[in-house]
Each structure stands twice: as structure tokens, then as C-alpha cells.
């Protein structure tokens, strides 16, 4: 399933590489089959066990529509005082539509001062990106944001 969708994507991208697909651009949005949702869920369980993530505390800033699926900027931050007895230990980034669900994990200590980072990631297709924060008190917080990867063109 995953392999075959990747193969068809390659074929289409090749057609675009020929410099010609109708509206041009990289990536495709038309097959949001969430083929890798199960992978993301499995990875989440490996990371946080059976804990139920709560909504809130985590902020994930990404564009709604990626300008370039090869390098999409993201900023993640957690609302935390970052004191010795109350701080954010780690923020995980997961992608539920990429061939591999794991993107990165950033670890923090109270001396980090702030639980915030910016980086860039690749997106194979339109999908949800998850930010999961583990706190020193054992609580887990999570947010998701959808990023669209489109053929583009037709500029109004």
C-alpha cells in the first residue's frame, strides 16, 4: 500500500520534472490516504506508553500550505515555567503521512529557559504534523496541524 502510493508519486513527480505538468510544482495532495497513520500511532505509543495526551500547552506553527514540501519550516513551543520542579522534558514531532512517522525529538532541561525550537522538515504529501510534549510531572500534551502539499499553479 505504502510502496505503491510512493511509486505513483514518483511517476507523477517525474512527469513534472520533465518541466511540464499542468500546474507544476512538487508533491501531490490528491491522495491523502493517511497510509501511515498507523505508524504514527504506533510510534506515539512507543514514546509515551499508554498515557492519554491532553490538548493544550503545546503550540505548533507551520504554514497551512507548504511552499516547498522538501523544506517546510516549523516552530514548536510549550507553555512551561521551566523551573526545576516544573519543566518540559521533551517535544516530539511526528508526521502521519510520511513514509517514516518520526521526525525529531528535542530535549530540554530547566536551564534551557524556554521549551521552544524551530527547524524544517520534509512532507511527502498533505498530512497532519503532531507535536507531543512530555512534562516533568509525567503529563503529556499534544497538538496537530494540517499542512497541505499542493501541485500549485492557477495563481488567481
Amino acid at each position, binding site marked *: 500500500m505504502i510502496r505503491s502510493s510512493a511509486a505513483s508519486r514518483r*511517476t507523477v513527480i517525474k512527469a513534472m520534472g520533465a518541466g*511540464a505538468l*499542468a500546474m507544476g510544482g512538487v508533491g501531490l495532495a490528491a491522495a491523502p490516504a493517511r497510509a501511515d497513520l498507523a505508524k504514527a500511532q504506533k510510534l506515539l505509543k512507543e514514546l509515551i506508553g499508554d498515557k492519554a495526551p491532553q490538548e493544550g500547552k503545546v503550540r505548533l506553527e507551520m504554514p*497551512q500550505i*507548504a511552499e516547498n514540501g522538501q523544506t517546510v519550516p516549523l516552530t514548536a513551543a510549550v507553555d512551561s515555567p521551566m523551573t526545576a520542579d516544573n519543566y518540559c522534558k521533551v517535544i516530539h514531532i511526528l508526521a502521519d503521512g510520511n513514509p517514516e512517522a518520526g521526525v525529531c525529538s528535542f530535549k530540554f532541561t530547566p536551564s534551557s529557559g524556554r521549551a521552544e525550537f524551530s527547524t524544517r522538515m520534509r512532507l511527502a504529501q498533505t498530512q497532519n504534523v503532531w507535536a507531543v510534549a512530555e512534562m516533568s510531572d509525567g503529563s503529556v500534551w499534544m497538538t496537530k496541524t494540517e499542512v497541505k502539499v*499542493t501541485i500549485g499553479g492557477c495563481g488567481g
Partner: protein
Amino acid sequence: MVSRRDFLTLTAAAAAILGPGRAGRLAAQDRLTETELLAFKPVGNVTILHLTDLHAQLVPIWFREPSTNIGVGEVRGLPPHLTGKDFLAHFGIAPGTAQAHAFTDQDFVELARRYGKVGGIDRIATLVKAIRAERDGRTLLLDGGDAMQGSWVTLQRKGADMVAVLRALGVEAMTAHWEFTYGAERVKEIVEELGFPFLGGNVLDTEWEEPVFESTAFFERGGVKIAVIGQAFPYTPVSNPRWMIPQWSFGIREERVAQHVENARAEGAELVVLLSHNGFDVDRKLVSRVPGIDVVLTGHTHDALPQALLVGKTLVVGSGSNGKFLARLDLDVRDGEVKDYAFKLIPVFADAIRPDRETAKLIDELRAPFRAELDRVLGHTNSLLYRRGNFQGSWDDLICEALLEQRDAEIALSPGFRWGPTLLPDQPIRMEDVWAQTAMTYPQVYRIEMTGAQLKEVLEDVADNIFNTDPYYQGGGDMVRVGGMGFTIDVDQPIGRRISEMTFLKTGQPIDPARRYVVAGWASVNEGVEGPPVWELVARHIEARKVIDLPKAGRVVVKGG
């Protein structure tokens, strides 16, 4: 409310608005005059004038408003997603009047012949000068972008004609979209040449994420400190070639807009105006989430609304396109807030308004070197030729026909641009008319093979850019136009499920997902696309045909909405 009263007066007196015309072509009860078009009961201490999406239309044109403008999700059936009779009923405009003609597609050909052409920068100049004289020291003129694309003259001059024209009009700030398709270096030159602020607070460089342009300009009018925040089209690098502006990143960037508003207030702004190229639905959502914006002057989606729409405490103004309208918004600003307002979207009926002499001279000079090429007659049209609308316009049908025949293709794809004026039936088709539909910096016509499955992916992808229920996920223009193929679209479905019944018109058979079709199209956003410019093929096609008589379109079936 003053604005409401003014508006009712205006529509009730619809016939009166259309005062005495010049050419004698108007019925007596329906005459248009400059005085009536300018009639306005002033309010307060500030007058904002807004032009947007001029698309380089220097001289008068016809422009038919859409028959189909579907809103999905929360905005279903709300302005601007009303057309024709529904639009007239909603705004209380009498059919057959000049107002009805200006704002809708109803009886278009008949009323276009009665009321004449619209727009023309020299007419706009006359209106602007009159309002400035009336509201001395209180007036601020702003342009919402897409001024510098849409004509052969502006393409040849890389926007320099429009720089001259905007300066002559006395525009005081602008934002941008198609301007970026001249590439980063030219944009930097334009910013220097303008002599007034080029604003784009949502544009950052890709390396350090630092601002590329100024976000905000401050003005004092009528004793009021005004902040104008510029928002460039957020999906420029997605909808147009990113390779032309590789170092610049866009996006809606709500948090930054909020920050600009806060900063403006901190610097003492009593009135905050967002000069935006987001598009109507994106701006409506934005102002419902970002507090502190008094007025958003929206653009991009070309919506012309006779009233300012109140969203929370924010007035949303949609001023149309192609120089067809000039928006006037009077505001009474006291104690840092808008106490009262009055609004009018003035239709620029070219026959009723005296051309401003200096501006007319400037336009003649700018066009003179191209005159012979522009006026070259290619053929004659028996059909009404228009583009604007969510789906297939007749200009697009003609372009697709040209692509199929001139490139020996089975299927044609043509972008759903919102720009491009209208040509009435029984008119010559001049080269200028073809360029008005096609003049842009990436016009190459490609010819490739695509499978039926890939064609479906393209249609689904573009459809989601229009009909995603979250406006923040919408980009680009109207639906891609197709030749040689029919399809059914259900706009209420999610991506992947909107398009069905794709039919290969040559055989009447369903499009086979596995078969490869020869496809011709233009305006690819990829770098290095090879092929002749689309206007050459369209011109050749019209010259070969001599007379254009298009069959009724009807290959796209629309469900939902």
C-alpha cells in the same frame, strides 16, 4: 446607521444614480452622470479610497461579473458568494439598472451596450481628484496589488507603465501579488521607483526569516493617525513560480499580522487598516481572529460589493477589479475608534466620466509604441467572450480550443485566472484582447503525456484550492479550465472525492486512469518549461478561424455548493 441609509438612498434611486449619459445611448430615466456617480454624503474626518486588481487595464473595457461564485463551509450563501438575481435581491438592487449591470452578469450583453464600457485610469483620476478636492487633507488612496500584470504594455515595460500611472493617481501605499512574477530583482527596482510604500508584512526571507518589505506605513489625515499594514498574496510561491522569488517566503502568518496591529497601536495609530491581497474569505476569517483591525481592504478574489461588510468590529471592503470600481469609505474616527462610516463602491462608467486630461495624455504616451501591435485585428467574434467565474468561461473555451488544435493535443488545461476582461458579441478580436487574457511572464505552452489518473489528481488538487472549507487552505484562482474533457464536480466533498465522470469528449468514453493522453497547457510554475507563448497559438487559431462562434459550454457539471 448612516451607511445603511446612504445605501438605501442609493439603491432606491438606482435610476437616478444612472444619470445623464453622453452618447445618448441611455434611456432618459437611466442616465448616468459623473455628479451622480460621485454623489456621497460625507461622514467624519477620514476618506479612504481603494483600488485593487487593476490588472494593468489603462483604458476602458467590459468586465462581466461571475455567474458562479460558490462559497463552501461557513460562508455558503454569504456575500461575496452571491451572483445574479440572488445578488440583486440581497442588496435590493433593481434589475436592469446601471447598478445591476455593474455588480452582476444579468442581461450582460444588452446592458453593456446600454451603459457602455467601464474603467480607464483617466476616468479614475477624475473621480479621485474630485473626491480629494471635496475632502482636502482627509483622503488616503491605497492600491491592493495586481496592478502591474494583465496587458501587453505592462508585460513589455515590466510594470513601469503602472508605476507611472499609480504615481500619477497619487497612490499612497500598495501591496502585491502578480508584481512578484517579474522576479525578485525587478520587484526591488519597482519598490524604489514607486516613491510610496510597497507593503508586505507577511514576506520573510527564506534564510533568516527576516522581513523583506516594510509592513506598515503611517499617515495623518483629518487629524487622525492612520496605520496601513500591507499583506501580500500569501500563496504567491505556490500559485505562481517560486523559482522567480526563491529567497522569499510568504504565508498568512496570523501571529505576525497581530503583532503588526499591536505595534501600530503602540505607536499611536487611531485607525488600523489592513491593505490585503489575501482574498475575501481569508480576510473575513483573519479579522475574526486578529483583534484591532478597523478596516480590511481586501483584494485578489475580485469581489465587488456595494456595501462594506461588518465582521465583528471590522469593516471588510471588496472593491472589484480591472479598474471597474473605485471604493470610497468615509470614517468618523474619534478617541481611537470608528464612530460612524459611510461607503460607496463607485462603478467607473467610462462614458459618464470625463477623462482627466493629464492622465489621458500619459496613457497615450505609454501605449503609443505598442499601438500598431495592440490594434491588429485577428478575427471577429459572434460569441460573448468572458473568463470570470468558478468554472469554464468562453474565453477559456477559445484558448483550450486553440491549444488542442495548434498543439495537436487530446486534452487542454488552462489556468482559472480571475483577470481578463470581456468582449461583446459582434466585435473584432484584436491582439490586445488576446493579450488581456494571456500576458504574463511564464506563457509557454507545454505538450506532454499524462495518464487519466494524473489528470484526476490535477483536477482534485486545484478543486481543493478553491473548495476547501477552511479558507486558510485555499490558494490560487478559480477551477482549472479544460478542453477535450468533461467532468462532474461535487464541491461539498473532500479532496480526492470531488471529481467524477471524467469523459474523453473525442470518443464519449470515460477517461481511462491507465491510458496516456496528450495534454497541452500553459502557465506551468516549473522552471525551464519550453514551448511557444500561448498568445501566439491563440492568435494563430483566431486568424485561421476568422469568425469565432463557440458552442455553449456544458462539459462541467457542478453539484453541491
